[in-house]
């Protein structure tokens, strides 16, 4: 009986998200009197793997066969299912990110394990096993009961706090059976931007909408983002117009994010946009229209012109940092 956590790595390193998952698994394992095993797939060194112990992993399994260096859904699902069986895991935890969405459904069918995806808290009950998740793109919450003995949860980012235990994990090499037939899909090329704060990782996001008037007006947003180590985002019309890249579009049909702080400059707050950002811990809105719906979703607001507010905000933040 154990909880298995799939801890993804990025170029051999874990991120805050990985530690959140382990902390989450630890909370559940502690409540049900079981242990946490983390599963890492790919090339991750021992020192990095041991870090997971500090967040609650009792054991770390590392599958580092070089065929597993790139994500191939069919092969990875097989590895994860085999690890779950080896550890007699009754609960498997994934992140609700690109990789979690690719793998968790496959593992669910492999193990006939009921799954609740995009959950935002520990289970409210273990018998029946009940968890809460958002539905209707953030407009409501549902309580979901998982009826099977084996269960899978995919956790929404930034839902739980990281908790350090000061412990060490035992690292064990894991050599799952690999089937050539599972590797029919091949990665031919990778295109990654470097040096920018990624929208999916960022704790602070600075976002602009049509109210910014033109793509040429983005310099102050970039400067504010620079001061705060923030990622840039935008509303759909802005990316549709080509003012900003599509990768920055947040909303129902773009990315769904959950940063600690979300700045919305010149964004009216259409339902589809809010669907992408409503899980933000704190929302600040700046808009010239006092009746803009964004103010109903925001925690703090300024009715004013973004082009005038931004320089003041930037200088205020610089002062705060210096004091």
């Amino acid at each position, binding site marked *: 009986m154990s909880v298995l956590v799939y801890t993804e790595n990025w170029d051999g390193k874990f991120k805050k998200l990985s530690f959140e998952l382990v902390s989450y698994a630890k909370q559940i394992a502690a409540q049900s009197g079981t242990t946490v095993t983390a599963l890492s797939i790919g090339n991750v060194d021992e020192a990095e793997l041991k870090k997971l112990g500090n967040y609650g992993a009792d054991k770390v399994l590392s599958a580092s066969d070089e065929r597993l260096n*790139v994500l191939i*859904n069919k092969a990875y699902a097989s590895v994860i299912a085999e690890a779950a069986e080896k550890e007699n895991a009754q609960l498997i935890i994934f992140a609700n*990110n*690109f990789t979690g*969405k*690719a793998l*968790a*459904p*496959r593992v669910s*069918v492999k193990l*006939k*394990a*009921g*799954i*609740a*995806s*995009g959950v935002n808290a520990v289970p409210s009950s273990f018998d029946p096993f009940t968890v809460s998740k*958002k*539905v*209707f*793109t953030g*407009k409501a*919450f549902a309580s*979901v*009961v*998982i*009826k*099977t003995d084996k269960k899978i949860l995919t956790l929404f980012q930034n839902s739980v706090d990281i908790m350090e235990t000061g412990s060490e994990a035992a690292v064990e090499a894991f050599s799952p059976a690999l089937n050539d037939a599972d590797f*029919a899909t*091949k990665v*031919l*090329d*990778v*295109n*990654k*931007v470097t040096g920018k704060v*990624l929208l999916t*990782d960022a704790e*602070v996001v600075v976002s602009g909408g049509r109210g910014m008037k033109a793509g040429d007006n983005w310099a102050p947003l970039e400067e504010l983002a620079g001061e705060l180590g923030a990622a840039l985002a935008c509303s759909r019309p802005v990316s549709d117009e080509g003012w900003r890249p*599509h990768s920055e579009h947040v909303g*129902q*049909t773009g990315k769904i994010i959950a940063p600690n*702080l979300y700045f919305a400059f010149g964004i009216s707050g259409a339902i589809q946009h809010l669907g992408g950002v409503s899980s933000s*811990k704190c929302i*600040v809105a700046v808009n010239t229209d006092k009746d803009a719906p964004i*103010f*109903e*979703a*925001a*925690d*703090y*607001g*300024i009715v004013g012109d973004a082009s*005038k*507010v931004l320089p*003041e*905000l930037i200088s*205020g*933040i610089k002062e*705060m940092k210096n004091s």
Partner: protein
Amino acid sequence: MNILVCISNVPDTTTKIRFTDNDTAFDTSGVQWIINPWDELALTRALELKEASGGSIDKITVINVGPQSTEPTIRKALAIGADDAVRIDAEATDGYSVASHLAAYLRDNAYDIILCGIDSSDYNGSLVGGMLAEFLDMPSVSSVSKLDIEGGEIKLNREIDGGSEVLATTTPFVAVVQKGIALEPRIPSMRGIMMARKKPLNVVPGAGEEALTDFVSYEMPPAKAACKMVDAENVKELVDLLHNEAKVI
């Protein structure tokens, strides 16, 4: 080559979400139903691929798991340009059950390319595509933002943190698609709407499995506290609030 597009029947985005039966069920009264937006984009891409294929892709089928009430939405997909449609007559109870119904049908009716939207705007499961691929023991690629067929080879872009990867795969496979797969959803023409009535919509009984999960109750999010307004002449106050009160900077 044949392409199958799995479509979900969902409430229109502007629907006011309400629950009935003591908050145990979604209130469908007055709801306008639409094709799940991601599935609509998937269908659009399928049609683009067929039109560019010079005849090597000959059929685009749409499939839905649902009761008779989903048929108007299925007809919309036919009006957009699908060649035929299948409705598996079963309630869409959870992702696992839906995927199992689709898999049971597909074991007897083969398709080379199966497209599913990354999630549906109602239950946001992001489950059916991946599950279907596993039931059918096929490769799957998720978060697909581009799908091309170049000289008989399947090329896909999948989105990753901070970029994208280019992949190749073999048929039959499942692509779980998202933003970028098509620029705009196709709108049915008058001709399309007329022809939709004559295109086959086959209804088959469900031969899948029971749901493994149960949506037992719902609730609306707690009312948000009123927005704290700061004067535009006093932006420093906002910095102070964010630093000392919200503690987010």
